[in-house]
């Protein structure tokens, strides 16, 4: 804007009118961008963020969509979302069923991030929390049917910690065991190897979901009696009356 000391009144009026139009236009566009952005921020649950990614809201403030993490990934796991995909445009993600995270020990994608949208404090890949595996279709899981598939358990890079096989009685045959793949949230990195390896056609019975979607939170006032008992070194409610258990003490089946 050039300074015009002797600006006539009607060009001042025109200037004001144009400015008002410009401000109005910018407000409408800005509002539109904001509202559209809200929707464009929606992240499909099958799209997982790279290791070390900040919580989604912070991630979107930090990620400049440069793709340097994608270039650093030696396994072609990461992709940048293109316009039209159900992931904020230009941000990096991977689809576990297609190409899971191989959990490189040096985590090359993290130091490649120039802004810290992938937190540089993450140096141990076992601390990564890209999502949480959930054995979501128990009706189709072969182990739940009583077979020994075990593939998700075998491929887990944190085997016996993130996924264990828990033994239960098989009520269908009544004489076999069920060895149920069980995910432990304190160890699962969300790499997605289990989801990729599941032998079922098309969709996997075990799926890695974003943690906020997969996890519930215990209510603040909930206490587990057995934990409280251990902490206190004994029962908190004192001795209780021991009632006889009828039928079992004789050793005979009813």
């Amino acid at each position, binding site marked *: *804007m*050039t*300074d*015009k000391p002797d600006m006539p009144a009607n060009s001042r009026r025109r200037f004001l009118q*144009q*400015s008002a*139009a*410009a*401000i109005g*236009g*910018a*407000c409408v*566009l*800005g509002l539109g*961008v*904001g509202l*559209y*952005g*809200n929707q*464009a*921020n929606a992240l499909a649950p099958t799209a997982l963020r790279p290791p070390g990614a*900040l919580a989604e*809201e*912070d991630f*979107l*403030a*930090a*990620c*400049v*969509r*440069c*793709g*340097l993490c*994608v*270039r650093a990934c030696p396994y072609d796991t990461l*992709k*940048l*979302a*293109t*316009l*039209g*995909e159900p992931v*904020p*445009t*230009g941000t990096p993600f991977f689809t576990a069923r297609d190409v899971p995270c191989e959990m490189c020990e040096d985590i090359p994608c993290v130091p490649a*991030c*120039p*802004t*810290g*949208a992938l937190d*540089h404090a993450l140096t141990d890949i076992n601390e990564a929390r890209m999502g949480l595996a959930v054995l979501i279709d128990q009706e189709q899981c072969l182990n739940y049917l009583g077979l020994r598939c075990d593939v998700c358990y075998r491929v887990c890079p944190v085997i016996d910690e993130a996924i264990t096989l828990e033994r239960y009685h098989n009520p269908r045959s009544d004489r076999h065991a069920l060895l149920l793949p069980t995910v432990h949230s304190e160890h699962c990195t969300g790499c997605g190897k289990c989801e990729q390896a599941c032998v079922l056609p098309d969709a996997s019975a075990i799926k890695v979901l974003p943690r906020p979607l997969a996890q519930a939170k215990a209510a603040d006032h909930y206490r587990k009696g057995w934990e409280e008992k251990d902490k206190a070194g004994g029962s908190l409610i004192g001795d209780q009356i021991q009632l006889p258990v009828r039928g079992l003490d004789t050793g005979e089946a009813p």
Partner: protein
Amino acid sequence: MSSPRSVAGRKPTAAARETKGWLGANRFLLLRRASQLGFLGLFLIGPISLWLARNGRLEQAWWPVKGNLASSVTLDTLPLTDPYMLLQGLLAGHLPETAALTGALIVLLFYGLIGGRLYCAWFCPINPVTDAAGWLRRTLKIKTSPTPPESLRRWLLLATLLVSLITGGIAWEWVNPISMLHRALIFGAGAAWGVVAAVFLYDLLFAARGWCGHVCPVGAFYGLLGKFALLRVAAPRRRACDDCMDCFKVCPEPQVIRPALKAAGQDHPLILSSDCTTCGRCVDVCSQDVFRLTTRFNRSES
């Protein structure tokens, strides 16, 4: 207008081609296209060499530049980051790592010292798109409806910063056709072509020079950044001007010419408006060699 001539309908390059030849009349245009292509090419060498390597036609991929316009690493050492995007990120509440800050500082210094909207004319991948729309509009003589006010882009710049602050996201990246096109070329397209086509059609049918000259807040940002930058177009031989209007026809920001060419509100022949993209097209098309690319300290006239 002292000497009326029958030049209204002619091609703006016609007179310059007669006096300077085709090459002389397109020197800066060719340099600019070479710069735009070369700049994009630097980003494309990596992905193309990777593709060749995977098809067994190359021993190993070579990456002179990784990343895209938002942030990149050159030869695995030099970081460059878009300061406008980083500013939105800062307002959205994220303090970036030093790599991005260093990269943004280098870019800030370059455009702040050399020339702000140099970015628009010489590097931005959308520029050839809007240039093509402008050329087609002139060729087909398409009349456009009134364009939005030229100051819209600065208000929109402010609006994107405010939206970033309020929503906690990098606001302009939801729409930015520049990064969408650049990313599309380097990482794969999706529906990004639709956005680029929309910009092209907007400039062709609705508003002359509408996108780059009135809407784009990226250009507004770099314009403000280069307020005191060194490189300037000047009209040192303005006494030779024959009022043919060729420069006004090709200039993407025609409002910047008059103060320098006609000494309107200033004495010196320098175009100091931060809207000037330093594209040099006026230098090309002037058959009288009125314009010259020079520094802001050169106020000489001849």
